[in-house]
Structure formats: C-alpha cells, structure tokens
C-alpha cells in the first residue's frame, strides 16, 4: 500500500512517515502544497493523508486538484473540529478526517478503513482460499496456522487480496508497494512474490505472463 503524506510540520511529518512505514506502507512525504498538488495528480497512491493547513497551496486546493483526476481515498488531518470545516472537506471529496491532536492508532484505523472501502471490502479479514489475511492485526494464517511475513510481503498479499480475481500488472504493484524514495529494482518484486509463494503455497499467486499477477483466492 502506498500513501502520499502531505504535512508541513516537519516534526509531525517525520513521526507520521515513520509510523506508516513501520506499519508496512510505502510512503511519499511532502511538506509543500504546490508539490503536493503535482504528486497527488501524477502518482499512484492507495490513500492520501492530507493536512489542510498547508503553505503554498492549501489542503482544500490539493484535494480539489486531486479529485479532478483521481478517486484516491483521502484522509484529512485538521486542527479545526468546526462542523463547517468538516462538512466542507467531505463535500470536496475527502473520505474521512482526523482532528488534531490525534492518536496514531486512530490515523491507522481510519486509513485502513478508507483503503478497504476504496477496494469495496467491508471487513478487515480477507479469506483467500486456505489463507486468512487480517488487515487490522496485519497477520496472515495458512490453514489457521500463523505465517510470518515481512511488511513488504504482507503489503503484496494485502494489495493482491484487495484486488482478488483481477490481474494486477507489475507496474501497478510496483507503484503501490514502493515509495518514490525507495531504492529498489524491479526484480525485487519477483523476490517478494517468490517468498510469498514459499510461505503460502505455490498456487497462492498465479502469474499471467506478459500481464501480471493474479490472486484467485479460491472463491
């Protein structure tokens, strides 16, 4: 899962970015509105975490620009709990909001929820054949036996799981699993896919040569 984090407070951006990374997200973090407008419209993200009080070009403008092009779910960070502000944000196409001062657990929960909803999944547990993926606890089980996955591997399973039944291209996977700043080569993806197959069974991820990967999920 790849997140675009737009927050002008360096100290807040730092902690949010680290926390998101440690929860297995790929994160692009920006502190400037102008840049954010560009990134939001160009990049492929699973969610945008947006502070609306931004220098340069304010959060609402970023949101409006983004909505002209994309349906990417947006979680708004705001220090204003005034109803009018919240309604304004939701009207502009924000999917949810968190009021400052917030708790990181709340940010994570709301982020998971908007990503899940954007993929049309209502629950936090995906049943993929013999494999169970708990998106909230971030654990995977094979035949009810817990399986250790690295954060990247989990992100791969999560993304394919949410898009189950659809062929996901390598480019798309790459876009959603790695941040702009990640130094990674495209064959890294093959390594992750290979590792997941080792842990969850050879047929768990199917390869459609020339198209991409598919997680049938057995259902």
């Amino acid at each position, binding site marked *: 899962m790849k997140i675009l984090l737009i927050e*002008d*407070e360096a*100290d*807040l951006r*730092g*902690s*949010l970015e*680290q*926390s998101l990374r*440690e929860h297995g997200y790929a994160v692009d973090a920006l502190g400037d509105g102008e840049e954010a407008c560009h990134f939001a419209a160009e990049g492929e993200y699973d969610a945008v975490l947006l502070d609306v*009080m*931004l*220098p*340069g070009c*304010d959060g609402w403008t970023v949101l409006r620009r983004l909505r002209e092009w994309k349906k990417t779910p947006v979680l708004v960070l705001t*220090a*204003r709990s*005034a109803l009018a502000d919240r309604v304004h944000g939701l009207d502009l196409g924000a999917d949810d909001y968190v*009021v*400052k*001062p*917030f*708790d*990181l*657990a709340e940010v994570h929960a709301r982020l998971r929820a908007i990503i899940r909803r954007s993929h049309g999944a209502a629950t936090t547990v995906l049943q993929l054949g013999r494999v169970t993926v708990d998106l909230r606890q971030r654990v995977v089980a094979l035949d009810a036996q817990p399986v250790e996955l690295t954060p990247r591997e989990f992100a791969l399973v999560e993304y394919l799981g949410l898009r189950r039944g659809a062929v996901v291209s390598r480019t798309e996977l790459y876009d959603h699993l790695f941040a702009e700043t990640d130094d990674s080569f495209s064959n890294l993806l093959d390594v992750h896919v290979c590792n997941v197959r080792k842990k969850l069974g050879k047929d768990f991820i199917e390869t459609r040569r020339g198209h991409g990967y598919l997680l049938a999920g057995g259902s």
Partner: protein
Amino acid sequence: MRPVSLRWKIQRWHTLLLAVVTTTLLLNFYIYERRARVRRLDAALTRGVVEILPRFAEPALLPGATAVADPRPEERRERDGYYIVVWAPSGEVTYRSPQAPDAVPWPDRRGPVWLARWNGGNREVIEVHPSGHALLVGMSAEQVRKEMRGFALTLVGIGAGVMLLGVAGGSWISRRAVRPIEEISAVATQIAAGEHAKRITPPANAATELRELAMVLNQTFDRLAAAHAEQVRFTADASHELATPVSIIVSQLQVALEQPRTPERYVQTLEACLRAGGRMRKLIRDLLDLAAYDAGQAMPRLVECDLAEVVRESLEFVAPLAEERGATIAERLESVRARVDPFGISQAVINLLTNALRHNAPGVRAEVSLRAEGERAVIVVRDFGAGISGEALPHLFARFYRVDRARRRDAGGSGLGLAITRAIIEAHDGEIVAANVNPGAAFTITLPMRCG
C-alpha cells in the same frame, strides 16, 4: 413601591385626570344651572313685589289714594301658590297670606332695600319701601329642587358615559402605545435567550422614539454578537494553534515507544518534543499577556525615561536576528522624554522590528525613527520591503491573523505578536497604525508624553 406596568400607569393617570375634569365640569354646570333657576324664581317673585308693594306702601306716602282695588293682585298671586307678608315700619304684620309658613321673620331693615333669602324650603323676596313698609313675596322652591334632582341625575349619567368612553379610549390608546415596546421587549428576550441572529424590526407605525430605541438596541446586539463571535473565533484559534504541537508530541512519543530505537532516534524524538513544547510555551505566554491586557491587569508601570534609550535597547535586542537575515536597520532618534513602561514599549518595538525582518526577503532595509510632535511621541518602524497586501492590512492586528500562512511556523511567531503590540500601546492610551509607504510598510506608534 410595587412595580407597575407602563400601560397600567398611563391608564391610571389618564382615568384620574378624566375623572377630575369631568367632575369639575359637570359640577360647575350643575351650580350654574341651579343659580339660573333660582334667579328666574327670584325674578317672578320680584314681579309680584313690584305689583303689590305700592298698594301697601304708597297710600301711606300719598294720603287719599285708594288703598284697596279690586280685584286684589295679591289674591291672584296667592292662587298661583305665592304667599305674601307685609310689615308696617314698626315691624307689625299688616298683611299675611293664609298659606304663608308660620315663621317668616321681619327683615328689620330701613328702605329702600331689595333682598332675596331662603326660608327653609321657601324662596322669599323682600322689598323695604323708603317709607319703612316691607313686603315679602315667597314661594316654595320644591319645584326647582325637584327639577335640579332630575338634572343632577342626567349629569351623573353623562359623567358616567364620558368616563366609560374615556377609559375605553384611553385603554385602547395606551395599548397601542405600549404594543411596540412589548414587541421590542419580546424580541430582546429571544435574543437574550440565545437567538443571537435575531434583530428588532420596529412596527411600521412605531413612534420615532421607539424606532431610535430599536436602532440603539440593534446596534448594541450587533456589537455584542461581534464580540461574542470574536471570542469564539479566538478560542477556536488558540486551541487550533495548540493542536499541532500536541499532535507532534503525541505522535513522536508513540512512534518512539512502539519498538526499541537507537539512542540517536530517542534524542531526535526528545528534540522534536522540546521544539513542540517550546512553541506551546511561547503561545501560552502570549495568550497570558493578552489576557492580562484584556483584563486591564497589565497596566503599564509608567516611568519617566528617554524613549530614544528604550528604542536603542530594542535595536540591540534584534541585532542578532538582523545579522542572521542580512538586514540593516537605520535609526533616526531624537531624544524624547516621556512617562512610559520601558519594558512594554521596548517589547512593542522589538515585535515590529522582528516582523519587518521576518516577513521580508533577507537583506531588507528597515528604519526606526523617534520624534516629538506636540505633546505626543511618535515612533515609526518602517521597512523597504514588499509592503502589506491591501487584503491583509485591516486584519493585521487581529489575533492569530497571519498575512501568509506559509510563513506562519518557520517564522516562529504565535500569530499574536501584533495583537500584543497593539494591546501594549493602547494600555498607554496611545495608538498604532499600519500603512503601506512606497516602498515597504510603516507602523506608526503615537504615545502621550505625560511629562510635567
């Protein structure tokens, strides 16, 4: 005294006045009418006297004249209900009608004299002839009294009617007069109960005074609503300003505690928390300063001093920042003695200079001048930078107003600097004005010198 409604008060006075006027009028009418009737009765009696008197008095003066003529006029009069008494000059009764009442006292007057008197229920007219003979013609006044009783009843009826109409009319008028006041009061009550957006619309036919009252009340409500809105906004802004540093502290600590970290990472976390804490401390100090000025507690401790010294101290204070920003600050200071709070004025000048340095590109040129203008000291802090946008100019001194949100945090201000500056100057009974002076912006502080 027990409070009474305005309408009841008007009604009460109106009724009382009406009662007094009506009663006086009708009473006078009654007295006038009664007098007129008695006078008419007197005239009739006098006619009798004139007719009869010669027959008793003249023969004495003119001996040989016939004393009695037929038919005797007194008999005719007696038939009409009159009675007649005649006295000789000695007081001896010479003639007396049979129907005359028992007690008819002799007038005992020398003539010529005419008089009218009451004798019990009878009216009597007496003429004393120069010869000393006295003739009395009297009559029962029962008829007059009866008529007057009827007349009095009529008058009481008229009086009651007038009072009834008057009271009803007065009640209608007072109700009409009071209704707009009641309407105004009802709306004011609603506003007091929390419907802050409501305003009084005086009825179309309301009196000028009530329109003015409604206008004054509306203006008061507007001012109160504005003050209330300002208070709400201020509270929201203050909590908003605190929200970000609290978020930083909480999220930094949560991340740090989630798993074991390197000592360097812990130091980073602590530094970030310290920065956030510092920001909160600055904000809270500024808020406390402002609150103290608002409450009138921070009354400046006035000391007579040379303002030029105060300004120079401020310049020394901002010198490191000026160096960092590559700015130059020129000074044109006259020596001006004034009674001020040196600490407060210094803080105000520092705030203005810091703003000038921070909100302009590095290398900006600024200038501080001080001069006396009559009884007032004038301090001008100007820069030769970009100036202030026309949109921002009117809001410059508002709390938490930021000309450019982008510069809000790296500039390190709380958004309260200019609000505090104005509070300091106003506590000195001075004023501060911001204006664009091509090129750049100028803040002009005017202070009363208060020196003997």
